[in-house]
């Protein structure tokens, strides 16, 4: 039983959406997604709704209370996953394959501009006994620890980060949603934040909402003549505490990707995948995730990128959207931002320099201080 994406809608992708509350952003994104799904009526044609959100992002103690109405789910089967948008796609995939559901709506929203003490909120995710007493002034320092471990183990230099940032900003210019894409900006002109990371290595935040409609093969064609099939989706948590995880290499991304490839029967990703959208909320992460997703042998992503393999028009374009460095990080929506862009490219709606766009891999990480990744394989 295949599972197809039949509708995608997004709203926002602005540093601060001033005129719409997060509920209203959810409504706008849902309206567009249902329109994209051939005018689907959520009140009668949807079996379940999955919302991806976290309490501390919203400042509300049970934030799932606010999920039903804006997506048309009042008095219906709605639930919240406190996780990444792609994990919600994973839930919808399981629900549809179980045979109990035919149409499942996935929603995620993030409004970082509403959070005034973002560093302290993110820091509350650290272990209360082993790390919290330190009181870090900048949680990005934890990512910097991973950056140095990776860079020193695989001989990655600052110029390679420069190349990633440069590629992201140039590719982002063609992405109407990429508010932070500024081709003129050079990484070395930005100050050091937590060495070796400079300001340009760290993606900024953005308010956004994305809704995706998934349907079983049985009914997909009712809503969309060319569904984009989700042939594999998997996620993995490496550890709860950073002290025990692999600082130099994201095993969670490797485990998530392998799970998705197995479901999609992909034996050699480097040959069978046409393009990829991966998490680059820190520049070095794009290189790490390319290698974790088996799109390049370990430690070589920097060289293949320098040869242009992963640039638009290259052998296997990575982040045609510019990724988080260009679009910004919308909290848990990030995975759906990558997925919605990939769907746009595969449907030919997004003009992109890629010759074949039939098989894509989409990846997202949940950011500092987590060790959780999600990967999905899409086919058209």
């Amino acid at each position, binding site marked *: 039983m295949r599972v197809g994406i039949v509708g995608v809608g997004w709203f926002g992708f602005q540093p601060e959406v*001033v005129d719409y509350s997060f509920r209203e952003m959810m409504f706008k994104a849902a309206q567009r997604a249902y329109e994209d799904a051939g005018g689907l009526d959520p009140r009668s044609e949807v079996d379940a709704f999955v919302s991806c959100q976290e309490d501390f992002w919203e400042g509300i103690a049970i934030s799932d209370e606010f999920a039903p109405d804006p997506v048309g789910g009042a008095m219906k089967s709605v639930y919240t996953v406190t996780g990444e948008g792609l994990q919600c796609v994973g839930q919808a995939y399981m629900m549809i394959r179980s045979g109990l559901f035919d149409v499942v709506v996935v929603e995620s929203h993030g409004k970082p501009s509403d959070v005034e003490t973002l560093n302290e909120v993110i820091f509350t995710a650290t272990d209360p006994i082993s790390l919290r007493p*330190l009181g*870090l*002034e900048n949680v990005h320092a934890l990512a910097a620890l991973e950056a140095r471990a990776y860079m020193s183990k695989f001989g990655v230099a600052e110029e390679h980060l420069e190349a990633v940032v440069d590629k992201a900003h140039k590719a982002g210019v063609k992405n109407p949603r990429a508010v932070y894409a500024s081709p003129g900006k050079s990484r070395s002109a930005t100050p050091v934040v937590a060495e070796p990371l400079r300001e340009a290595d760290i993606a900024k935040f953005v308010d956004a909402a994305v809704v995706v409609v998934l349907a079983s093969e049985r009914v997909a064609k009712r809503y969309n003549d060319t569904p984009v099939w989700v042939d594999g989706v998997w996620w993995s948590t490496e550890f709860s505490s950073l002290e025990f995880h692999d600082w130099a290499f994201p095993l969670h991304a490797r485990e998530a990707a392998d799970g998705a490839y197995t479901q999609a029967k992909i034996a050699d990703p480097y040959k069978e995948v046409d393009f990829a959208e991966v998490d680059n909320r820190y520049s070095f992460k794009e290189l790490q995730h390319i290698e974790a997703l088996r799109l390049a042998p370990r430690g070589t992503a920097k060289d293949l990128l320098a040869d242009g393999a992963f640039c638009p028009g290259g052998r296997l374009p990575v982040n045609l959207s510019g990724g988080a460095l260009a679009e910004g990080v919308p909290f848990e929506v990030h995975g759906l931002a990558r997925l919605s862009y990939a769907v746009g490219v595969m449907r030919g709606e997004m003009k992109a320099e890629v010759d074949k766009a039939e098989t894509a891999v989409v990846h997202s990480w949940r950011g500092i201080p987590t060790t959780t990744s999600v990967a999905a394989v899409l086919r058209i």
Partner: protein
Amino acid sequence: MRRIKHFPEVMEIEAYIYTAGPVGTKWLEALRAGRLTAARCPKCGRLFMPPKRFCPYDFEEVKELREVEPVGVVETYTVVERDFYGEPLRERKVLAFIKFPDVEGGLIHYVKTDNPQMGMKVRPKWREERRGLVTDIEYFVEI
């Protein structure tokens, strides 16, 4: 149409009081006494620091704490220059992940050094007045 665009609010209580569990409490008491320890899994023999009450790998119960030589190795580090909001810190700080020989995990902590190096040997500099927290170690210094 006039609107009040923002509504300030908080999601705060006064304070959380975190307990550390039976093994964690002993670990904190050891810190208060100026000693570093690690928890040992009886089944697979791994030593865990920070301590665990159960082995994440085989789910066995962990009860025993073992003394650990207060000599660590900087496995990775960063020199933090700006806070999250972009303001330069009053003084640069070196944050590191410090591993201890034959111990799984390690400590994320500050190192007082002007010349941080991967693989640098360090030892903890204990505060005079200790309360049973990881901050009883003020920072690590190079050996």
